[in-house]
Structure formats: C-alpha cells, structure tokens
C-alpha cells in the first residue's frame, strides 16, 4: 500500500518507533540471526588471531625437527599439525589470518578514503573536472593490475607489506570512486541538495554536511563487501609468490604451500582454507545484513 497515495500512511506506520537511522539499522542488524552469528564468528576469529598465538609454545617460524608434517591431533603440542618444516600450523594459520585481516582492512580503508574523496568531488563538481577525474580512473583501470603489482614488487622489496598495501589499495579505490561518483550524481539532483544551495551553503559545506553523510550507507555496505575481496586478492598475490614471503605467513601463501602437499598432507591445505572460507562467508553475510539493515524499505 506504500504506493497508494503520495504522502502515504505506511511509512508513518513503519516509522512509529522513533529512532535514528543508524540506531534502527543497528537494531535491525542485531535482530537478523544470520548476521549476528556471522558477526560473532568474525569477532571470535579476530580475537583468536590476536591472542591465540600466545597460548601456543611455538613461534610462527620456529622449526620442530622431531615433528615434521604431523597431522592434526597426533602430537599434543601441535593442535593443528605441522608443515613440512615442522612449523606449527595453528600458530602459522592464526598469523596468516592476522596478516590477511590487517592488509585487507587497511587496504579497504585506504581505498575507501581515496575512493570516497575522489568520487564525491568528481560527482559533485561535475563538468570538466568530473570528466578529467574519471578519465584518470579509466586509465588506471585499463592498466593490467598484475603488471603494476609485479613492477612494484620488483622495484621495491619483495613481499613488503607496505608495497602490498599500495598495490592492493591502488586497484581497490577505483571501483569505490566509481560507485561513489554514481551515488553522488544521484544525490546531487535531489531537492535537499538544491535546498542547501538555496540556503547559501558553500559547495564544500554541502559536500561535507549533506553529500558525504548520505553516501555512508551504501559505502559502509560496499566496504564490508570489499574486505573479503581484498583478502582474496592478497591471497591470490601471495599464492602467485608476489605477496607475503616465507617465513611470514598469510592465508594465501599457506594455501599455496598446502596445495603443493595436497596429496600427501591434506591438512596443510585444509586448515588455512577453512579459516579463509569462514572469514569470507562471515564478511559477506555481514555485508548483506548491513545492506538490508540500512535499507528500511526492504522490510
């Protein structure tokens, strides 16, 4: 019935409970069971990745010559087994999770900040400025990113986290910028922006007070969906040997090593893969839940 009359009754009915948009979004988010589960698992994994290694006697690069390639559960000290060199898989996987999460969250943050700023300015300025800014994005898009990463890693220290961050962030912000620009173009035509202009706000104030806050909804959703992409991308680069280097562990290079031993020692692949899959599923669930929660019309 929401479409029945322009100034409809249903929205009033639904909005009977007074609360802020975010507060209500938070409540809806918490009331979705799948999302709550995903959030709990995510927090648990993150906590485990931070404090888990302290509870194990092993360091991530410590070799245990007595126990080479031990499957999980065989030796009391190595809960999830060891790899070919006798390094503890539990510790290494948690290190991998930590590194992967760190890189992906930082890279997402970098790409969000650059992407939102770039896209909002381009969309709001419009005309020539928009044209040039977006053509620049197009040019970066058209460069094969693997080449950029390879060039970056050969120019600088291979496997340095800084380079990896730059490489991933440099690719990630392009999509964010495009999405944000599109949203900004749609927002710019809304009457409340015109109202702000009529009020006498400067363009910078309109951007800061009205455009960016209204972008946060879609951007927050996009961000939770970017993090898993970044994890996959990092894993992919590490899998190719371009990312995190031995003896450091990331989910990507753990899986890479595990894949080589798939026949003889499947747990070396399964342990990090299981963590990766759990992380990705939870992050995606969270993103979906956030999208639903921020869009009250879906209910």
């Amino acid at each position, binding site marked *: *019935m929401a*479409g*029945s*009359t*322009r*100034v*409809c*009754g*249903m*929205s*009033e*009915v*639904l*909005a*009977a*409970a*007074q609360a*802020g*948009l975010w507060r209500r979004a938070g409540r809806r988010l918490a009331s979705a069971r799948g999302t709550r589960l995903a959030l709990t698992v995510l927090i648990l994994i993150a906590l485990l990745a931070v404090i888990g290694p302290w509870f194990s006697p092993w360091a991530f690069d410590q070799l245990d010559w007595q126990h080479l390639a031990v499957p999980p559960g065989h030796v009391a000290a190595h809960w999830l087994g060891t790899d070919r060199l006798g390094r503890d898989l539990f510790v290494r996987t948690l290190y991998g999770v930590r590194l992967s999460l760190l890189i992906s969250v930082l890279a997402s943050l970098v790409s969000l900040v650059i992407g939102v700023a770039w896209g909002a300015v381009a969309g709001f300025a419009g005309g020539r400025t928009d044209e040039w800014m977006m053509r620049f994005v197009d040019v970066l898009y058209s460069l094969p990113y693997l080449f950029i990463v390879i060039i970056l890693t050969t120019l600088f220290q291979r496997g340095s986290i800084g380079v990896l961050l730059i490489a991933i962030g440099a690719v990630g912000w392009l999509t964010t910028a495009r999405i944000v620009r599109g949203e900004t173009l749609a927002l710019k035509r*809304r*009457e*409340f922006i*015109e*109202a*702000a*202009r*009529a*009020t*006498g*706000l*400067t363009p910078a*104030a309109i951007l800061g*007070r*009205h455009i960016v*806050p*209204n972008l946060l909804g879609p951007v927050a959703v996009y961000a939770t969906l970017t993090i898993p992409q970044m994890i996959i991308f990092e894993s992919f680069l590490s899998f190719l040997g371009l990312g995190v280097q031995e003896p450091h562990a990331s989910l990507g290079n753990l899986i890479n090593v595990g894949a080589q031993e798939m026949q003889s020692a499947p747990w070396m692949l399964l342990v990090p893969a299981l963590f990766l899959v759990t992380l990705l599923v939870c992050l995606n669930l969270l993103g979906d839940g956030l999208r639903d929660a921020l869009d009250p019309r879906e209910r």
Partner: protein
Amino acid sequence: MRSIPVNAEVTPQGPAQVLRLCGLAVSFTTPAGVVCAASDVSLQVARGECLGVVGESGAGKSVSFLALLGLLPPNARVQGAAQFCGTELLRAGPRALERLRGAAIGMVFQDPMTSLTPHLRIGEQIAEVLVHHRKLSWAAARARAQQLLTRVHVTDPAHRMAQYPHELSGGMRQRVMIAIALACEPQLLIADEPTTSLDVTIQAQILALLAELKREQGMAMVLITHDLGAVAGVADRVAVMRGGRVIETGAVAAILNAPHDPYTQALVRNAPRLTASAGVTQAARGQEAVALTLTDVSVEFSVGARWFGRAAALSAVNAVSFELRAGESLGVVGESGAGKSTLARAVLQLLKPSSGRVVWMGAALGELPAGELRALRRDLQIIFQDPLASLDPRRTVGEIVAEPLRVHAPELDAPARGLEVDAALRRVGLPATLAGRYPHELSGGECQRVGIARAMIVKPRLLVCDEPVSALDTPTQQQIVTLLAQLQCESGLSLVFVSHNLALVQRLCERVLVLYLGRMMELAPAQSLYARPLHPYTRELLSAVPLPDPQLQPARLARALPGEPPSPLNPPSGCVYRTRCPHAVAVCQQRVPAWELAGGDRQVACHRWREL
C-alpha cells in the same frame, strides 16, 4: 472478529451489484504493534456505476481495495467479506485472484511511470495481458492493443506501440495504463488516485476518459481519490473515509451539496473553488518599492550533448519579464513543461539564466560574486515541490531548520539556535518536540511545514514556492496555503507561488502570470484574470480546475482541453499555443503575438484577445 456493519447501506442485493464489501477490516503487524488500517468497511458497486472513495491519505481507501485483490504485503491481516460477482475474494486462492486481476478486475494506479515496465515497448505491455489472460496469439494481441490505444484516445497509436514508457508524457502513460486495465474487458475497474500526479489539464482529460468509458462500456468503477473535484465529474455515488472507516455514503449530489457528517462538511467547504469572493484583492502598492525585477530572462538547456555531435538547445523559459513589489504575491501558472519551476530557480540563481537580468533590490543577482550571492540568499528563500525529498534524510528536523542560521547567523550559539528553531517550528504550527525526529517519520504536510520553517527562520524578504502543495492531498493543501497566506501577511514578504492549479493560486496571489512553453501568455491582477480571462489558454486552465460541483463538473470535463503541450525542443512557429488553441487563425502561425497592454495593468500575448 466480524462485526455487524453499522453503516451498511440498505440497497437491494441483486445481481446488479458487481462488488460487495461487508465489514472488511485490514490490520498490519509491525514491529511497533498491530496497526489497524481499515475497519468495518462496507461498500457496494453496481454495474455501470462509479463509486468515488474520498479521504485523506491514511484514511484506508487504497488499503481496502488492495486487500480484496490480495495485493497487500504479507504482514497484513484481512477480515470480513468481499464478494465480486458471486466469488468470495477473501477466500479465493492466489491462483484464482491472479486470474481475476487484470482480467475481470482492471486496475489503474497513481504513478503511471512506476506501474509500467521500463524496458518493454508499450505495445508489448498491453499485448502481454491479452496473451496471458485471453490466450490470444501475439499478432492478434498486438492488433487488439492498437485498438485499445485508439479507444483511450492515444494520438498516433501505431507509432506509440513501438515506444518505451519513458518516451511518453505522464498523461499518455496513464492512458496506456487504462488501456491495459481495459484489455480484458473487466467488469470492475479500480482507479487508485489516477490523476494525482498529473497537471490539471491532463487530469481533466483522464477524468473525462474515465467518465466516457463508464458510460460506454457499462462497467463498474471505483475511483479512489483525495480530491472532491475529481469525484464530482465522474462518480455516481461517493463514500467518504476517515481513519479506516466509511463515515458517509450517498449519491454524489447529496454528499457534495448537503453533507451530513461534520468531517464531510469540512471537506466540501475547503475544497478549492473558483468563486469570485475567494480571491485576494490587490493592495494599493503604488508607494511600495519594486523589490524584484526580471528583464527578458531566458533559460536554455542543451540536450543530447555527446562527445561527438551537436547539442540541441531547449528553451525552457523564453524572455520572461515582470516586476514584484515588496510584500506583493505573484502566482505563476501553467502546465508541466511551461517552465514554471525553471523560472523559479532562475529567480534564485539556482539555475543561471542564459540571458536577461534578475535584479533584487538594485543588485543584479547574475553579476554578483559567489560569496556575495550566498550572503544575499538570506533574503531569498524557496520551498520545494516534494516535501520529503527537500529534507536531508540523515538530519533531524531541528538540524534541518537550524541550517540557514548556521550559515547566516554564525554568531548564535547552540542554545540560542535551539530557541530560534523552537520558535520557527511553532510559527508553522508544529510542536517543538518534533525537532528530534527524522523527516521520514513525518507526514507529507508536516514535512512541508518543516520546509517552510527552514525558509522562514532567517526572515527572508522573498519566498519562492515551487508547487509547494501539489504532492499533498487536498485538505493538507488548504492548510499549507492558509499558513503561507498568514506568514506573508505577518512578515510582509514578497511571494512567488508556482502552481498548475489556478484555484490554489487564487487564494494567495494578487497577480497571476500564465506561462505556456516558457513564454508569457498573460499577466494580470488576480481579480480581473479570474473574472475575465483574456488569453484562450488562461480560459482553458480555468475550466480544467476540478470543481466539487456535480451539476457543472461533468459538462466541464466534456470540454476538457485536448492534446498536450508540444515539445519545447521544437516549438510551433508564431504563437506557441496555436496548435491547441480553438481560436487559432492564419496569423497565429505566422507571427509571434506581441506582449501588449490590455487595459489596467493587464498584459497579454494573443493576436485575437480583443475579439474573443
């Protein structure tokens, strides 16, 4: 909980009754509890009869009829009985309902754009219904679709068949919707606010079409609307709803001429009319200074600009000039596409005029540096058409209303601003407690009041209202217009009021400017304009106003101005109005009529105003 309907009509139950609702009740289960949307609705519609269902938004009009078609969201609970030609609708399965919808029961909704599928051609959409329900072949269905388009008076139906919905005007889209509803020759047509989003002239056309269809096809019709004027020309009987209940039913003449219920009486009393006494008299302003002067203001848009290729120039406003004295109110009237909103934005420099000057208190606004113009905006405020869209959804009402203060009175601290906001909210008739709410929690009328409070908080000297009430239902329209009149009276500001409805303008404005295709047609004091319109277009606009008068309205509808404004990309030669003007002669095609003085301070652009 089926109760005995208290307001059931005592009419003989015969086969003539196409639809009988008996004690229909609809409630919604929401997170905030169970909300009752309609209760105890008992109505009937006979063959060949049109029932008008009137009420404010939220009165349960649409809900009741969507309920019996099974079109409500899953959290709705429907009770009671609804018999359609012997079938109990509320107990029919989804399959059976689907067979009825679109076949035996046709539906027309308010917004013809969202009801049509954007990527399908018009012809396909009509034919689809026939193929689905009537099992016609596609070729036969297309042939029938073209007949249907002819039936609903769509011009050039063969060509329209191949067009997409976005290529059609609002009125044409609504005709297509009606054609789809008629495709299977339904026994009942339910039209839910079919004319609310349309101009008065197109409204009159659509209502005339509905009246004609009812007369000639002999089907039963339900016309859901908030506008008594729409009901007057088409409906035979009227049911007035309020708060989910039917409070009064009766023949259209009885309800409109001698209503019993106090609520209906208020509705009828407040319905917009064109009475000689309702107008605002022009105050003697000879001594008042001219506040705003527009000289030959034109606004052009370039359309179709591509990287390679030439943009066409669309002239939205063409050489408009007028003067507005301090404290004076000017109405700007015309159909959509007449350039009214563009003109309103050009006055405030929200759109840069491509030529001409806008002078406010001696300052040419177009030549001011950006900073000075922003400072001057304190005096120049605007109210927008869509009350909800003009408020930032992420800000509370308090923040929205306070924003102009932040810009123009930065010296105020937060508590002082809060006091100002409270005062501003109270001045527009809102409780100060509303400041903590968000726009989507308010009704349309409340949103518009917030918009007015935001504009008025900096005590402007010019207020531009861009169709401020056309998105609201009639009773709310009256309240907002009354509020604007009161604010203008108190603060002595100048007012530019844009509307497509001359009846609304009459309540507020001392002078009226009539625009057509961006050109000035007539400019006159309101009283003489309403008493004796000089330009034929002004006359048509006046006769398109839906009046709540069942004696006059059917005849007025029958005389509705045919056709729609031509594309501003390709305006007719000579007088732009000649293609629709019933009095057009050869000279109208050859020469552009001069903007002439026509006695008093009236001005008109028509070759034949003296003879007509």
